[in-house]
């Protein structure tokens, strides 16, 4: 055979220039009571999905995903799709949390938007996480600040509070600007405990369910949470200056 040298000067798009989408990762629940099942897929011939369970970035040296996993340990699980023709995907992350301490009552001093009031006043303490779809009724959406007091049956030692929120700027849904925690030993008088400012988004199209952990480390009867929505949509966004949305799915008290 004479060297049939292949010509590589095509003007057409080349496959290594295009990324795979993230694998679809589904969990029977993101809150672990005893155990949950987690599956990952990208329905395409020749796809391999690699994963880690220690929060590190997956690579082709990580564990190859072959079948749904039964998981009983909370943690950060990461998945990445690979294919010999296409560029590897970005990393899909799923955070599994231990079931928290049940709240007795939750008293709201602010109202969610009527269209996104979730499954009622207990949506944020019902032990159910939401999917990434903002229409999921596990989401509670606010176009204002979100303030509520959670009361426990007994005085309880609370180590941390995990607040789940949605990041989806293309649907005008932004992370909160600030979270402030007040605690009460008697359920009536509250003292300020912690205030956290989140760094504002500077760009982004991806939709992600995020969790932020607040440290409590106190024995309390009640906790007041004030979540401040960003005042207005930042200037880089198509909705600049207009009201942003704040979506939360769960508060977990550990």
């Amino acid at each position, binding site marked *: 055979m004479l060297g049939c040298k292949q010509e590589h000067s095509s003007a057409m798009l080349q496959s290594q220039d295009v990324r795979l989408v993230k694998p679809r990762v589904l969990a029977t629940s993101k809150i672990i009571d005893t155990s949950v099942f987690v599956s990952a897929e990208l329905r395409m011939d020749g796809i391999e999905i690699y994963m880690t369970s220690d929060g590190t970035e997956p690579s*082709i040296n990580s564990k190859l995903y072959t079948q749904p996993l039964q998981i009983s340990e909370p943690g950060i699980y990461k998945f990445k799709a*690979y294919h010999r023709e296409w560029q590897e995907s970005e990393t899909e992350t799923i955070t599994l949390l231990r079931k928290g301490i049940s709240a007795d009552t939750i008293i709201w001093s602010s109202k969610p938007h009527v269209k996104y009031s979730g499954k009622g006043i207990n949506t944020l303490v019902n032990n159910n996480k939401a999917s990434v779809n903002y229409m999921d009724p596990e989401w509670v959406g606010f176009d204002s600040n979100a303030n509520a007091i959670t009361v426990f049956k007994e005085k309880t030692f609370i180590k941390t509070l995990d607040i789940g929120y949605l990041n989806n700027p293309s649907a005008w849904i932004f992370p909160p600007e600030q979270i402030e925690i007040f605690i009460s030993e008697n359920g009536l008088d509250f003292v300020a405990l912690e205030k956290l400012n989140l760094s504002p988004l500077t760009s982004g199209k991806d939709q992600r369910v995020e969790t932020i952990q607040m440290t409590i480390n106190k024995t309390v009867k009640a906790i007041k949470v004030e979540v401040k929505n960003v005042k207005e949509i930042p200037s880089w966004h198509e909705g600049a200056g207009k009201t942003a949305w704040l979506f939360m799915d769960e508060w977990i008290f550990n």
Partner: protein
Amino acid sequence: MKRRQFLEKSALASFGILSSSMYTSAFGFERNKDVIIGHNSHRYKVDMNWGNLNPLQVPVKDCHEIVQDSKGRIVMLTNHIKNNVIIYDKSGKLLETWGTDFPGGHGLTLIKENGDDFLLITDYERHQIIKTTIDGTVVFEIDYPAETGKYGSKEEFKPTETTVLENGDFYVADGYGNQYITHYNHKGELLNIFGGRGTEDAQFLNAHGICLDNRNPFDPCLLISAREQNILKRFSLDGKYLSSIPVPGALICRPVVHKKDIYFAVLKSKEAANADSGFLLIMDENNKVVSCPGATSPEYAQGTLNELYQSIRLFQYPHDVCVDEDDNIYVAQWNSGNTYPIKLLRT
């Protein structure tokens, strides 16, 4: 020339399409291989450079729709009022532009009338349908159908699409408004109204596109997309509901009948990690999905189509397709960083 190359590169780099030099992978790449997308009988190579223009001279906002005229030219409608209509030849060379009055220019349909080409444009901001000659002279404008009693004001009428019968009758889909389909004769006189917002068989959520299906000349019907519901609905020409064709996961824009097949731009996947999750979808003569360029392979189990979703980050928000006589596809995209159409070459 240098500037043009730079613009192309930066436009590609910002949306998941990376230039190869930025990357090295240990995964044993098959390098320098032309992308081939799609499934079964309908597979395509991708030309990202087709139709790219200097955005300072001929800018685009959303590229909403594309048609091919009788001369074989590719006619595109954008909502950029510097040049609402951009006309290319099939190689992507700019031929002419016109139009500065269509801030909500959305639907574009070709009418052939006694050997001459005309266009029907829907404008959801003007709340009107406008008929023009192929070079932009206005023939008539139609306002909202007040006489039907289905509209409280013109603002409720946000038409997204039209389709034309051989006798000149045409239909308008009010996909961003009250979701009615209105039927007019060739002079623009109202004959019928049906549909409306709702989840019943004969109603729509986001009646985004409409198209005459004359593949069987003895039994023509209307194809209407209920985009939010991921369903293509079939109606008789007198507005009676016939049947539904579900396309799970696919937010289909207007149907485009070409030869024996129906082509769709899919704005986005219903469930996806990234919002810019569009792809294309092609149905065969039996209205079965045979190919989804940019998405998962269509498969039927007991007659039910599996959920489709974007698999590679090539398209952002495809909004319309135009198929030429060689079966090549031109893809217009909404909200995709002011990018020009993409051409797909049938392999």
